[in-house]
């Protein structure tokens, strides 16, 4: 019996079904924890799911590549979901157009702050240069960040991880930070979370307020553009 179970495990763990299923189950657990906590940002569903899955891979000795064969189907949907962000953007376009200049200036200010403070802090703390280069684009959405990282000589897949960690941090702390700073305007709140914490922050913003979500998705898209132009420029300066 034990042998048969082992055989079954060996079979299942090599098909994409396993990686896909555990991803969805882990996320459901994360979402349930999030609801139970009364939407407490610390119980972020991405954070809970990632911790559970890392523990599972570690406990079963499963390589990430095997896991990703199944998980890639979820990962793939990032593309169409990014396209779909056009819809909340369209619905709030009148509001957005009225503040176009403010939005543009705020996003450039945020983008420069993200790059300079990320690289500056890690440099002061003695991080290696490949870590510094991998950190530079970390506040933009995963596919863009990976592209920038590769272009400037960082490690694209390390950048992907730093991007996710940034998003989780932003989603976890944005509400407290913005409350503490006394910022109540949903447009400013959404925009700042979209610049600082890309898609994960945007997801959190949509859970809190739809207008904030629309500003967050706009900010995420424009920040990708601003950062893609600024990072290569800043890394070329003679520091």
């Amino acid at each position, binding site marked *: 019996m034990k042998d048969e179970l082992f055989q079954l495990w060996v079979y299942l763990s090599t098909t994409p079904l396993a990686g896909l299923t555990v*991803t*969805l189950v882990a*996320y459901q657990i994360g979402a349930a924890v999030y609801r139970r906590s009364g939407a407490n940002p610390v119980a972020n*569903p*991405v954070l809970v799911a990632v911790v559970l*899955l890392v523990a599972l*891979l570690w406990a079963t000795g499963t390589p*990430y590549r095997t*896991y*990703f064969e199944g*998980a890639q189907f*979820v990962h793939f949907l990032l*593309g*169409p*979901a990014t*396209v*779909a*962000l*056009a*819809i909340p*953007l*369209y*619905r709030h376009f009148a509001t957005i157009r009225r*503040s176009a200049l*403010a939005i543009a*200036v*705020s996003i450039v*200010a*945020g983008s420069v*702050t993200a790059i300079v*403070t*990320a690289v500056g*802090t890690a440099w002061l703390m003695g991080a290696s240069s490949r*870590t510094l280069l991998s*950190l530079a684009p970390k*506040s933009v*959405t995963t596919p863009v960040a990976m*592209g920038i990282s590769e272009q400037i000589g960082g490690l694209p*897949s390390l950048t992907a*991880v*730093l*991007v996710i*960690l940034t998003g989780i*941090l*932003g*989603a976890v*702390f944005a509400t407290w930070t913005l409350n503490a*700073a006394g*910022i109540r*305007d*949903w447009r400013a709140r959404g925009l*700042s979370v979209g*610049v600082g914490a890309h898609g*994960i922050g*945007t*997801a*959190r913003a*949509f859970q809190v307020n739809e207008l904030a979500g629309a500003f967050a998705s706009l*900010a995420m*898209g424009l920040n990708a553009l601003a950062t893609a132009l600024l990072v290569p420029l800043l890394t070329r300066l003679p520091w």
Partner: protein
Amino acid sequence: MLGALTLLLVCQALGEAVVRLAGLPVPGPVMGMVLLFGWLAWKGEVPEPLARTAGGLLEHLSLLFVPAGVGVVLYLDLVAAEWQAIAASLVVSTLATILVTAFVMRKLVGPADKP
């Protein structure tokens, strides 16, 4: 639902094509978002099936980041060796970015619409 999903994928594919042919530094899906936005502006409304499908995708947007996040297992050694610098950098930079963006926006933006 199928039509809406097809539309999203067509926009993404066209976005990839435009970005590659024009050599733009933006990712294909972001260009796809711009194209879909243009299509909606031309049409003047969001068709109901598209609104439903997109709503379903966006409702679970955070799920889609889980597989990339699990990729941290590939870098446990590097992260363990430099975790103080990485943690400090992520915390300082994320909070600073959110605060700077929010303050600049609040300073420049006009009064909010009446609800």
